[in-house]
């Protein structure tokens, strides 16, 4: 049987898991009301269980003590009995669909922030500052250690009383347990540090206390890292010794293993490998741990594909695979494997929009699946066929918003035509995918291509739709997702003209798409600081150009998320790209064969010049509104959206007007206002799901 290794049940402790796929612990940023697992939280996990996930370990970094703040990331709060009834709702929702659910519990020690909420003094074995959160902390005292050990036990009791199937003790990501483990952080000389046994003691006492509280018929596991990747940190051999030590207690039911420590920006990027990483980059570390322990091992890191999961499990490297981002992208991944709909799986592309939002304290969302985390609002993962009239829907623009609109409308059973001026679907995704290490973003387009073909959407590629063509089709609904163009005309001093021969500046799109040949000595001016500027820099440097990327913001790539800017930086520094901040592009002029870019210091007003042969400007997108204004007055709704309905994910009222003449006009994505991929897809879903 195909995928038999995935669908082999496994016993963890006394618990039977129906398959080998786990949604591992991650911070959802969904626990509201002071860290309670309320409706949104429950629905998010229920969807995974419905979709067939074997085991969900929820609540990454759920706290056991009040001096480990939960509010920064809206994580789950197990420091109070108030959580128990909420857990019962959560457990029921998952169990109803045959899934199992555990929760990760932790004390984060120094890995948090103190400058808000209860203004705690963070604790750590030796009071050493944590760089990622810029958090200072106090050296923990013996009394506090024992209090926290007790808190762990009480938290485990609450999980058990709430009907959850187990707890995972977090000894990973530099939380308190592994702060004690790591000699990099634990400099103590007392019984809680120094020797191996001393550094192990806190975790061991936590484990003993938890086990004593919950008994034998409740799962208790531990998540550890396989190698901290710090010269002064815990090596793989150290971690094998630690794993074997805890395993020998016989009190653990499973281990979760991931590669890399994460108390620097650079190591943090390893923990949730983005699209620049190869598949399962740290599987060998988990396999190494599996060699020395006697209980099942779970490993998650860049496992996104059923064939990959099957291969890993079949090879026996680990016992269960974490497919966490894979589930964020498509919570029905298991169902689709079972139904032979592999091609319909929306596969995670590693854009890390989810985790990069989380590091900003924002709720976890998927760049390409707008229904994820919005199940509670009624946004569907499976679009049901409409019971209403069949409509002629014309979508203009084959970028992410247009593709989602066409897909959703086709799923509703309508007759859908999609116009795209370019020869291929994808829009800005196609451009973004040209940069080194960013090719996997094209996976978003690939999925839509397959879906639109499956749904028999009439694709008119290489066709620029105009007013007459559209109206000839006698549409009931027109959806405009025409995007926009690089906004280079904002400052005349930049010397941009539409004639590429004369224009003094080109856009990052021109460079990435290959429309303009790479220069040899290039200045990139990036006013936006998102992906496109650093992508263009990486691309040009990769082609052999000498590149300086300049921004008026605090640093180039400042708006690129925490797990992604490090991989850009690794590449840019290696290629000797110069990164300069605080300078505005004042003016560009031609001098001889070259160009002179005049830069102005934001803070002093001082001017400086660069002599280059190419100036690339990233200044965002200017919406393409021409078609919209050509159609607006003819449309029944004058192109307007009912915002109350839109924000509540309700049907647009104009859809239910009976017998009305004329077509409805909606626009979404960058042709309304420049936003991002998720925004375009979200608008498309919430507008089109009720067609």
């Amino acid at each position, binding site marked *: *049987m*195909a*995928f*038999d290794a995935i*669908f*082999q*049940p496994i016993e963890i402790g006394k618990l*039977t*898991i*129906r*398959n080998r796929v786990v949604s591992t612990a991650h911070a959802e940023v969904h626990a509201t009301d002071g860290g309670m697992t309320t409706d949104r939280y429950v629905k998010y996990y229920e969807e995974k*269980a*419905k*979709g*067939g996930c074997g085991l969900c370990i929820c609540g990454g970094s759920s706290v056991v003590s009040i001096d480990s703040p939960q509010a920064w990331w809206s994580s789950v709060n197990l420091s109070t009995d108030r959580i128990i009834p909420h857990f019962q709702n959560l457990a029921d929702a998952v169990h109803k*669909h*045959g*899934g199992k659910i555990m929760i990760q519990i932790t004390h984060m020690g120094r890995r948090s922030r103190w400058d808000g909420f209860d203004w705690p003094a963070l604790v750590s074995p030796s009071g050493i500052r944590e760089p990622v959160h810029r958090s200072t902390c106090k050296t923990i005292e013996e009394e506090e250690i024992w209090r926290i050990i007790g808190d762990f036990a009480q938290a485990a009791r609450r999980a058990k009383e709430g009907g959850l199937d187990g707890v995972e003790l977090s000894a990973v990501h530099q939380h308190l347990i592994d702060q004690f483990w790591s000699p990099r952080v634990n400099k103590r000389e007392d019984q809680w540090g120094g020797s191996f046994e001393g550094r192990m003691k806190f975790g061991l006492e936590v484990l003993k206390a938890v086990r004593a509280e919950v008994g034998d018929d409740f799962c208790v596991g531990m998540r550890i890292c396989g190698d901290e990747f710090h010269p002064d940190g815990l090596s793989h051999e150290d971690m094998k010794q630690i794993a074997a030590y805890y395993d020998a207690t016989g009190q653990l039911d499973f281990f979760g293993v991931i590669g890399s420590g994460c108390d620097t920006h650079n190591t943090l990027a390893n923990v949730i490998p983005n699209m620049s990483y190869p598949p399962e980059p740290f599987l060998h570390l988990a396999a190494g741990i599996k060699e020395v322990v006697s209980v099942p091992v779970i490993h998650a890191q860049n496992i996104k594909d059923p064939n990959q999961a099957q291969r890993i499990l079949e090879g026996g490297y680990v016992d269960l695979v974490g497919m966490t981002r894979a589930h964020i992208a498509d919570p*029905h991944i*298991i*169902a689709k*494997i*079972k*139904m*032979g709909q592999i091609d319909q799986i929306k596969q995670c592309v590693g854009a890390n929009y989810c985790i990069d939002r989380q590091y900003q304290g924002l709720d976890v969302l998927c760049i390409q699946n707008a229904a994820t985390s919005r199940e509670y609002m009624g946004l569907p993962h*499976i679009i*049901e066929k409409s*019971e209403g009239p069949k409509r002629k829907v014309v979508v203009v623009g084959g970028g992410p918003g247009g593709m989602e609109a066409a897909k959703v409308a086709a799923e509703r059973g309508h007759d859908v035509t999609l116009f795209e001026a370019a020869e291929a679907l994808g829009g800005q995704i196609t451009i973004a995918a040209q940069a080194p290490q960013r090719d996997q973003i094209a996976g978003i387009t690939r999925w839509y291509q397959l879906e639109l073909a499956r749904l028999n959407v009439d694709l008119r590629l290489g066709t620029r739709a105009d007013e007459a063509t559209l109206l000839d089709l006698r549409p009931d609904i027109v959806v405009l997702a025409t995007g926009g163009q690089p906004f280079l005309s904002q400052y005349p001093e930049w010397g941009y003209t539409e004639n590429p021969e004369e224009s003094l500046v080109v856009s990052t799109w021109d460079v990435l798409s290959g429309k303009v040949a790479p220069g040899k000595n290039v200045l990139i001016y990036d006013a936006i600081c998102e992906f496109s500027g650093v992508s263009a820099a990486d691309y040009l440097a990769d082609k052999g150009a000498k590149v300086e990327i300049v921004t008026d913001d605090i640093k180039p790539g400042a708006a690129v998320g925490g797990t992604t800017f490090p991989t850009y930086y690794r590449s840019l520094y290696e290629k000797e790209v110069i990164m300069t901040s605080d300078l505005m592009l004042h003016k560009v002029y031609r001098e001889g064969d070259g160009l002179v870019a005049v830069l102005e210091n934001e803070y002093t007003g001082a001017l400086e010049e660069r002599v280059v042969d190419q100036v690339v400007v990233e200044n965002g997108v200017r919406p393409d509104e021409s078609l919209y204004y050509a159609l607006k007055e003819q449309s029944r709704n004058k192109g307007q959206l009912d915002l109350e309905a839109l924000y509540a994910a309700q049907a647009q009222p104009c859809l239910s007007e009976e017998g009305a003449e004329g077509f409805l006009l909606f626009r979404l994505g960058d042709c309304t206002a420049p936003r991002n991929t998720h925004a375009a897809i979200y608008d498309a879903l919430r507008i089109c799901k009720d067609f």
Partner: protein
Amino acid sequence: MLETLLPILIFAALGLAVIGAIRRIRLWRQGRPAAVPLLKGLAALPRRYLVDLHHVVERDKMISNTHVATAGGFVAAAVLMILVHGLGLAQGVLGWLLLAASATMFVGSLFVARRRRNPPARLSKGPWMRLPKSLMAFSLSVFAITLPAVGILPADFGHWLLALVLAAVVVWGLGEMVFGMTWGGPMKHAFAGALHLAFHRRAERFSTKGGQGNRSTGLKALNLDDEAAPLGVETPADFTWNQLLGFDACVQCGRCESVCPALAAGQPLNPKKLIQDMVVGMAGGSNANYAGTPYPGKPTGEHHGSPHGPIVAPDATTGGKALVDAETLWSCTTCRACVEECPMMIEHVDAIVDMRRHLTLERGQTPNKGAEVLDNLIATDNPGGFDPGSRLHWAADLNLPLMADVKQAEVLLWLGDGAFDMRNQRTLRALVKILHAAEVEFAVLGTEERDSGDVARRLGDEATFQSLAKRNIATLSKYRFQRIVTCDPHSFHVLGNEYGELGGPDFNANWEVRHHSTFIAELYDAGRLAFAPWKGGSVTYHDPCYLGRYNGEFDAPRNVLKALGIEVKEMERSGFRSRCCGGGGGAPITDIPGERRIPDMRMNDVKETGSELVAVGCPQCTAMLEGVVDATAEVRDIAELVADALVARPAGEAVDASRRSAGKTTVEEVL
């Protein structure tokens, strides 16, 4: 002159016929012995002919009436002719009766002639083309010679030349109808056919005064302990004598070939030709005189056989040819469409499996994936070679009660090997959902269950079949339950119809086997299930061979669909004439190439109804039909449709029609 000549001619013909009959019987007796009650069989003959055989023939009214007139007229005319012209008892009513009989026969023969004017392709030509003329010659000449006997014409009517011509025509008629009957002419079918009915190997197929016959579709077991008995059929003489007799009864009407899915797919099988080849082998010689549709891709005249020579050339790899090629035997899907249609009640499938048994058990020549599947069955008790311990993996989250724990239950849910198949697991989960909804007390055997043995048996591996069957029987005997319910018609058939012979008399005395559609229909009738109204598109239903033709269950699935609010758009070939999906008899395993695929043809049948969905009730059919590329219809098991439509059972009152179903089974129920 005729008065003198006629008795001589009549008795000479009868005498020759007797000699021919003895020779023919000796041909049949080359076969192995069979325990058949001869006298009882002969006594049952009239009823078997007039009721059971007629029931099949009657499906074509025109032919039925033609045959009644022609055959009835002939039998009466022949008997009366002996009396009137042979023994000279022309007085009184006998002569008039003879006139009436021959006239009736003549009218019948006109219709036979009309049918032969533009005969359909399925009819054999050759000697059969002269039969209407012979029938007319006999009936007309008998009529003519009887006119003087009753005094309509003077006794010395006409010239001696006329008498001579008449005598010649009488000779023609007698030659075909009496001499030819036992010497291998077309009329052989009457002689062999009658005896075949009397000595049929499945007496239970026929009705008795006490009631209907049963479908008698279970294969008969090989006695593996009898060292003298051959393991299957190697030579024509290895068939039992009454099987040989049955082959000889073939009337070459080709009803079998017109329904054979393998022939339609251009695979090298034609059931009619196969039976004729057995006749050739029984008598010895070549198939050059066969005048019907050949096996696709195999010209006639190249094969030959003898009673004691091998049917299939021992070393097929050298291109040696014998009576038939192995791939002919492996093309059969065991769908029984041929048997169902055969007016002579010939048992084609038994013969094919007999010959397969030899190829598999004696020669180890099960083609393509056959050997691997059989090895898997031997090693793992399932054809896919899956870890036997994984049979219940699909239900890890369902907490199904195990028979080993509960010991007894109202229903034993038999999973079948679909338990290893991801597609069928959805059907099984749907079925479990239904059983829960109806609050049925059930349990499963879990890892104690083994493959039913269906595939092994149809591939000719009787030893593996019996090994699996006996172990399943032992397992079943440990527990108490009222019925076995299964969504697999193959398991259903084997458990219900084939285990009995091996399990001893009391083995299945206390329980019955139900196909899930039958059981669901019963639950619905008992008010234990309630359905939301059907909101999907048009639906057709595909009858699985092993449910329909094998077990006569045509109504329950349709009743379930009706209860769901579905009006079935029937395919032209449905019910007992349903076209096979191509998945039976191990055909997908032996995988004999043809010009097209059987499931493609079946999905085309579906397409012709314009249905958006085809409901099925068999994992094999589901797999075959879902495997069709660019199909126009979705394939769903009845259990899935039912599970989708389930709504909470009303407490006493009628179902509220506005109640909505729980929704599409897109997600949790399939997992």
